[in-house]
């Protein structure tokens, strides 16, 4: 059960590689067994530079000052103002509070989504109950509904409850996700043997024990993937937070939106704010990049 799907998927390649030395006699090397040529590397390196450059330049611009950013040619290397600008962004744009708020919001949403999606996904994958197919259809149908469709009533509700500027206003509406339920169902259908659940039932295990001792261990890899994807999405969520929160109690994205709309006129401070708001996720990418990539690719094959 603990054997991760990712590892399983890679395994079939091993024996093939060992067989490979026999094959060149036929001269057949094709598909993913072909080596990339110099042109392949050249294109990939250009694309990688393009992907990383705007981020690096954010740091460069954040380490300069406003005057230097209003000259040609633009700066290509770091200046000495980074910490001063970070400090200004921290105090003037409320970035400190914004980071704390975003951590709370994204953490709660990721936890809630993973927990509720696993429970519902398990029920849809392995249990029998009435209206199961209708309810599942409802879940799939709602994955398409854009958030714009609920913004006006949500705003009315928040105004009625006087939740403006309170974190629950952005946490509660995104605490569950139809995609999450679908994702966990697809995973558990394959990864959790039905016999295991039935055997536990015959032994008299309650549903809660089955969830705790069988479903959670089996679902752990998919839960980790869903948790990461949800955390990134919640950290970067823009539309609803911009409407529900103000500069007094912002998330990172709300603070950045206000920076961009003229809250602070200094360009280098704006870039420092953008850097601060992105840094935690970038750090996570440096540490867990491989797992995140694996998670997205795994999710793609499953979904």
């Amino acid at each position, binding site marked *: 059960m603990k054997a991760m799907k990712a590892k399983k998927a890679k395994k079939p390649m091993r024996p093939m590689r060992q067989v490979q030395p026999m094959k060149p006699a*036929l001269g*057949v090397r094709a*598909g993913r067994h*072909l080596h*990339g040529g110099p042109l*392949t590397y050249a*294109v*990939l390196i250009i*694309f*990688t530079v393009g*992907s990383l450059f*705007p*981020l690096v330049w954010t740091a460069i*611009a954040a380490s300069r000052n406003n005057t230097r950013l209003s000259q040609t040619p633009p700066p290509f290397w770091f200046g000495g103002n980074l910490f001063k600008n970070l400090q200004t962004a921290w105090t003037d744009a409320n970035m400190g509070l914004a980071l704390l708020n975003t951590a709370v919001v994204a953490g709660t949403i990721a936890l809630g989504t993973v927990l*509720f999606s696993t*429970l*519902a996904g398990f029920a*849809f994958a392995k*249990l029998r*109950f009435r209206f199961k197919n209708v309810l599942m259809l409802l*879940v799939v149908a709602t994955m*398409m*509904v*854009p958030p714009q*469709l*609920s*913004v*006006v009533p949500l705003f009315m509700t928040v*105004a*009625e409850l006087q939740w403006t500027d309170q974190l629950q206003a952005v946490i509660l509406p995104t605490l*569950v996700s139809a995609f999450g339920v679908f994702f966990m169902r697809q995973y558990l259908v394959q990864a959790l043997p039905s016999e295991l659940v039935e*055997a536990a*039932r015959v*032994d*008299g*295990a309650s*549903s809660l*024990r089955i969830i705790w001792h069988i479903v959670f261990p089996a679902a752990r890899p998919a839960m980790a993937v869903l948790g990461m994807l949800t955390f990134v999405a919640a950290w*970067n969520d823009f*539309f609803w937070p*911009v409407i529900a929160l103000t500069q007094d109690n912002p998330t*990172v994205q709300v603070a*950045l*939106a206000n920076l*961009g*709309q003229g809250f602070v006129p200094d*360009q280098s401070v704006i*870039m420092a704010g*953008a850097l601060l*708001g*992105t840094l935690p*996720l*970038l750090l996570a*990418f440096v540490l867990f*990049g491989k797992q995140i*990539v694996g998670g*997205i*690719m795994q999710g*793609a*094959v499953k979904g």
Partner: protein
Amino acid sequence: MRPYTDQTGPAASPSSGDAVPDRTGPAVVERPQGTDRRRVWRSRRYRWDTKYSPYAFVAPFFVFFAAFGVFPLLYTGWSSLHRVSLSAPNDLEWVGLHNYTRLLGDEFFWNALRNTFTIGIISTVPQLLMALGIAHLLNYRLRASGFFRVAILTPYATSVAAATLVFVLLFGRDYGMINWALDAVGFGKVDWQSGTLSSQVAVSTIVIWRWTGYNALIYLAAMQAVPNDLYESAALDGATRWQQFVHVTIPSLRPTILFTVVVSTIGATQLFGEPLLFGGAGGQKGGASHQFQTLGLYLYEQGWFNFHLGRASAIAWAMFLILLIVAGVYLLIARRLRKSE
């Protein structure tokens, strides 16, 4: 798992099984009856558990979903039939279909619809084509393939807001790096923000930058699931790398491509943050002459700057309708493709 394999009795949980006899201490004499009742109770609880716990498991999702998904969706429809002001968001005045008929004659609505469509095309088509190419290259045996994969995914970790703020500087008219480079090679500077096409290209660039790597990884995952014998037999038949790509890779990827097209389309109809922040102060207008105002921005402007929440609701439902039409078209295309196979 261990608790189940070495558990001998039908006891639901060992701890409760031990505790119960202690509590019924004085009644030990009538033990048969007591265990009987307990067994009945236990089997009833067991039956209830199997019968109702599935509903308990799906309940949290559906409760939240009803409160924050279904109810707002329907209520948006309801409020689109009313005049509602932002200053008194809970006073609804019935106007029937007025908000919709008004939209039909509203040049800004059609402008926003047109912009959403063109930006959607400019951002989605090159993005997915590039992602396909990059995925194909990553599918070769490579040194440092792990590094490439993580590096091209970093834009995905960057938020819409942070990315747009950087690109606003890069696309700056006077001191931006892109104009500096264009000037250096002799093309001259472009006033990115004021032109219709140029501003839409700039906004699309942000979308492309953020999502190409992500889509490339999704394609790569699908490519790795293509059985290698297909390539080998194609190679035996003398197919070049390009022919293998066109005749083996692309057909095998068809479902994945359709999936990414659908997801990108949904994303494109909702486009909001990029044009808002690209416009700077007063960005809800989408530029001085609304040249890059999308439907999402127009909804925001009508609701939160012009105070017409009823009209904003009507725009939201119009967006939903457009999405349904597009989904129907895709469904037709998918069916046609499947038939032609």
